[in-house]
């Protein structure tokens, strides 16, 4: 008996890897399946072969960071991003993609020119849901012990904000949200990831 599958196998055009060291893997897998793509779990560098896109899910960034170190995934993820394939990081995943991490530092990949501040809103009792402002109209965003993104560089496109703070950003093939698009039925963030993957394939 297994708690969760390790991949889906539809005859899909795109295959998305989900880093499965710790955190909310299944909600992302469900969102990718709903969007018509296939997913597979990523726990070792060789799992990245033949993927069209990658997701760094939410979870505990310290735990995920230590897990990535242990199996040598940091270097492999850097190489994956440099190949031009798109990467989406949510919450802890956004922290791991930032150029710099403040508060309680963890090693990050530096894929997006922002400073991530961990636990910037407080503890779980300060978690909240709201509607973000930006291109995606009516985007409902759930923030759970969320980080804040500060000082976006000139190459960073801010796609959505809450109270003036960037909550959805893009730099070339790297997308990051400080909220959890995988926990709501709104599929537009995952669709944006798949669209980047499709464009690259053409």
């Amino acid at each position, binding site marked *: *008996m*297994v*708690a*969760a599958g*390790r991949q889906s196998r539809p005859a899909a055009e795109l295959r998305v890897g989900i880093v*499965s*060291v*710790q*955190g*909310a*893997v*299944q*909600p992302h897998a469900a969102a990718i399946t709903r969007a018509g793509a296939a997913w597979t779990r990523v*726990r070792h560098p060789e799992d990245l072969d033949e993927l069209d896109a990658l997701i760094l899910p*939410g*979870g*505990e960034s*310290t*735990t995920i960071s*230590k*897990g990535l170190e*242990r199996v040598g995934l940091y270097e492999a993820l850097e190489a994956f991003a440099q190949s031009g394939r798109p990467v989406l990081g949510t*919450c*802890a995943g956004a922290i791991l993609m930032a150029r710099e991490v403040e*508060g*309680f530092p963890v090693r990050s990949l530096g894929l997006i020119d922002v400073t991530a501040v*961990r*636990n910037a809103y*407080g*503890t*779980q*009792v*300060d*978690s*909240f*849901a709201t509607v973000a402002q930006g291109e995606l109209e009516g985007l409902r965003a*759930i923030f*759970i*012990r969320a980080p804040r993104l500060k000082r976006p560089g000139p190459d960073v496109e801010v796609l959505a904000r809450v109270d003036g703070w960037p909550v959805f950003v893009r730099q070339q093939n790297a997308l990051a949200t400080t909220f*959890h698009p995988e*926990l709501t039925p709104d599929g537009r963030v995952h669709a944006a990831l798949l669209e980047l993957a499709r464009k690259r394939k053409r």
Partner: protein
Amino acid sequence: MSEQAGNGNGGAGDATAQSFELKVGLAEMLKGGVIMDVVNPDQAKIAEDSGACAVMALERVPSDIRRDGGVARMCQVEIIESIQRTVSIPVMAKVRIGHYLEAQILDALGVDFIDESEVLTPADEEHHVDKFGFRSPFVCGARDLGEALRRISEGAAMIRTKGEAGSGNIVEAVRHLRTVFGQMRSLQALLPEEVPARAKELRAPLDLVQRVAETGCLPVPNFAAGGIATPADAALCRSLGAEAVFVGSGIFKSGDPAVLARAIVRATTHWDEPEELVAACRGLGKPMEGIEMETLSESQRLANRGW
């Protein structure tokens, strides 16, 4: 913070209560991780450095509660606060079953999860805490599906099978996991008109039983606790369906806590990869002493607390 839980079980109308979606959301984020019992900031730091996804602050670990006896209560406020200052990962703490005042104190401290736990001495032998009215989410123990659904109907945002805390013996955790998952599987085989009778048997609300019959899983994340002492124990619980594990006395009662903590984290992530498990099992110090279940009387079994 605007939305209410919606199950109508008390707490509604309390403007400070947090929505069920946000509470379950944090439980989702803890999946695949290890939550470690700690009694001071130094242990909390070791847990965080070892890759724990959260720590559980308590006054004494279960094996010491078992040895020393007496009434076991909520952890001292100063200890919780010093642990909150020390680590960046979520901090949980335990309250006695039914002790909603201890729960209000933890809620005011802003702890990330409250464990209404059978490991502490129960404060109310009839009623559990109405968990909807709080900002902090709750986790509760369960031995079977009915108990799990009763706790969820009271507002629990996470279930952990109870096992037998402080025993260093995995047998009860296995029993409770097999019971919960077996009961869920057998529910799925029922015809719709047969579900109400089963709900009665389970002593659980019909709407929740119907939901499990449809989906085949609990409406909240389902973790395991009680007796996990080795990496292999953690992997076994994951293999039986637990989405994360709580480790109590096992780590800080072992010969080398930091090494064992890292090994259990590794085994929890890579539970279905035998080569990783072999690596996790190398170089471990002496594990905690275990207790044979036969030597525990019914009244010494912590899992029997709660109803």
